[in-house]
């Protein structure tokens, strides 16, 4: 039971590579916080600094009441689950799980009790005497989890634990992990490159890029109110559509204009966009916010396009369309019957338009 606070944390490699840049984060007690981002964004490095496996170049990390900067991993009261499980090959499952407790000189009976308890929660009791090489990937995963649980640590750390599992198992384990977290009520920090895992598992999600925290927030907040273009494009699948537009004033209202697209800036955003009149900006709209126009859609929020590719997914259809030079993706109902090269008219949902500054990419 502990909160994790990172203040001004930086990591330099060799004075040239600035892997983690001035990270400030606060994970609340019992929160499941997910770090997500593309490879090389610094999420794993940050996790390893929290674990004590990397030295902190500058800044401070607190776990619970203690500043842990100089504490070796064994003193931080944490447990970690690795991508490759890191099970001790020469020890049985029981000994793997008992190792941490043995290191801390727990009594034999207490160790036995805790191991059996954890094994029961994870359903691996029949495996206790086996060696890791006799287990399947999913079973090894559970043993790795069990090893972390028995210690009753203040903080759980996960380094892409589901990446090595096949797709079906991954989905199953995701649900189990969430249930486990509910039950254990311990703060957890989880690193992944998969935004689906981030959205489904995290109480709050931290999006990172190039060592910088882009945004911290609850999943739906990141989805609906992305702080910048990167977050907008990273979260959500298929990714948000972007188009370069120029903001023009006409008849007292602002319009976003580009070849093939002319859309009115919704009233809600007008105040924010006014300073950008006459300049470039980036327009963003999610595939699910586009639909085939029917007669009742207001003309300001409609545009014409040609269908390039139709991808039927069963529950929905993805339309790859082009409007002028812009290639966009729209998610439409399965009942829609259009074919390649058809000309269609699409409508935006004005409430779901996003604008981003052209140079800084921040949301406007």
């Amino acid at each position, binding site marked *: 039971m502990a909160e994790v606070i990172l203040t001004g944390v930086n990591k330099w490699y060799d004075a040239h590579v600035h892997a983690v840049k001035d990270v400030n984060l606060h994970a609340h007690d019992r929160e499941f916080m997910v770090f997500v981002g593309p490879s090389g964004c610094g999420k794993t490095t940050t996790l390893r600094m929290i674990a004590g496996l990397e030295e902190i170049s500058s800044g401070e990390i607190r776990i619970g009441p203690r500043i842990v900067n100089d504490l070796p991993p064994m003193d931080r009261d*944490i447990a970690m689950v690795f*991508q490759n499980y890191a099970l*001790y090959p020469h020890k049985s499952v029981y000994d793997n799980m008992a190792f941490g407790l043995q290191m801390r000189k727990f009594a034999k009976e207490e160790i036995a009790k805790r191991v059996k308890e954890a094994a029961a929660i994870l359903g691996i009791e029949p495996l206790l005497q086996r060696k890791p090489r006799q287990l399947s990937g999913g079973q090894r995963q559970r043993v790795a989890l069990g090893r972390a649980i028995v210690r009753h640590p203040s903080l759980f750390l996960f380094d892409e634990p589901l990446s090595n599992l096949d797709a079906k198992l991954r989905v199953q384990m995701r649900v189990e992990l969430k249930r486990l977290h509910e039950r254990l009520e311990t703060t957890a920090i989880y690193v992944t490159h998969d935004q689906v895992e981030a959205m489904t598992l995290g109480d709050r999600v931290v999006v990172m890029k190039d060592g910088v925290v882009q945004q911290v927030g609850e999943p739906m907040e990141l989805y609906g109110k992305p702080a910048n273009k990167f977050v907008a494009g990273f979260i959500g699948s298929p990714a948000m559509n972007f188009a370069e537009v120029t903001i023009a004033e006409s008849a007292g209202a602002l319009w976003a204009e580009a070849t093939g697209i002319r859309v009115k800036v919704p009233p809600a955003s007008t105040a924010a966009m006014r300073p950008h009149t006459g300049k470039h900006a980036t327009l963003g709209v999610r595939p699910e916010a586009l639909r085939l126009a029917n007669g009742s859609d207001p003309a300001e929020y409609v545009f014409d396009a040609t269908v390039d590719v139709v991808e039927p997914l069963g529950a929905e259809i993805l339309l790859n369309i082009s409007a002028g030079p812009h290639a966009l993706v729209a998610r439409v109902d399965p009942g829609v019957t259009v074919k390649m090269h058809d000309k269609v008219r699409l409508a935006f949902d004005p409430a779901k338009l996003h604008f981003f500054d052209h140079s800084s990419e921040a949301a406007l």
Partner: protein
Amino acid sequence: MVIERKWKKVVYFYVPLALFILFTLFPFYWMAVTALRPDPELYRSWRASNATPFWTLEPTFEHFVGLLQTTAFPQWLWNTMLIAIVSTVISLICGMFAGYALARLKFKGSEFLGTAIFITYLVPQTLLFIPLADIIRNMHLGNTPWALMLTYPTILIPFCTWLLMGYFKTIPKELEECARIDGATRFGAMVRIIFPVAVPGILSAGIFAFTLSWNEFIYALVFLSSVENKTVPVGVVSELIRGDIFFWGQLMAGALLGSVPVALVYSFFVEYYVAGLTGSVKG
């Protein structure tokens, strides 16, 4: 597998292989035959016709008996075994520690040290024995097994260190990291997790060191003077030739018996030995 004709197989495969085996093993066979031949049969001129050139109809153990009873051979065997075991243990421990430090720990000068250890391998023993004789004498270790137990590691440590370094590098880092998070110190993680997982590598280094120890000659020759303290190679060379006369029967018996312990130990660890041989070259 590329298919080939049957006769080609015989000519290009079985015949050469048989020749190699013959060439390789004949000297040992000859050693054994000579050791079992009675003296009169032994010293027959190369020209004399011989009904049983390659074996003997009257095998005798007199050479072995003579060797074991009239010379200090048993003592030499014991000395050599003791020295080999102690040197191997010392070198293994040093090699395990050094190999781990160089493979896993980041510190300034690790590359330099790795190269330095490699360079020591290039310094020939025939250069060092001269000043070493002095040093050993000053330490009052002359003519004692400790003279060798401390100097053999100089040949064995570089090898053990490389071999184990290469081996440690193949063990995933996560194992140690997990152990450290679980509560082990760095040293504890090394000893409880890394070393047990590296047992095959350690056995390879150990058996290789053991055979190298048995094979060492020049330091033993220079540092050991009294007959009871000698090792098998030195003893056989210096004591079984009295005057100018070679007692070939006993010599071959000695050579055979002297080879048996090494061969025996080797036979239990063949796979490890081969792994050590190939591992050192690749790593």
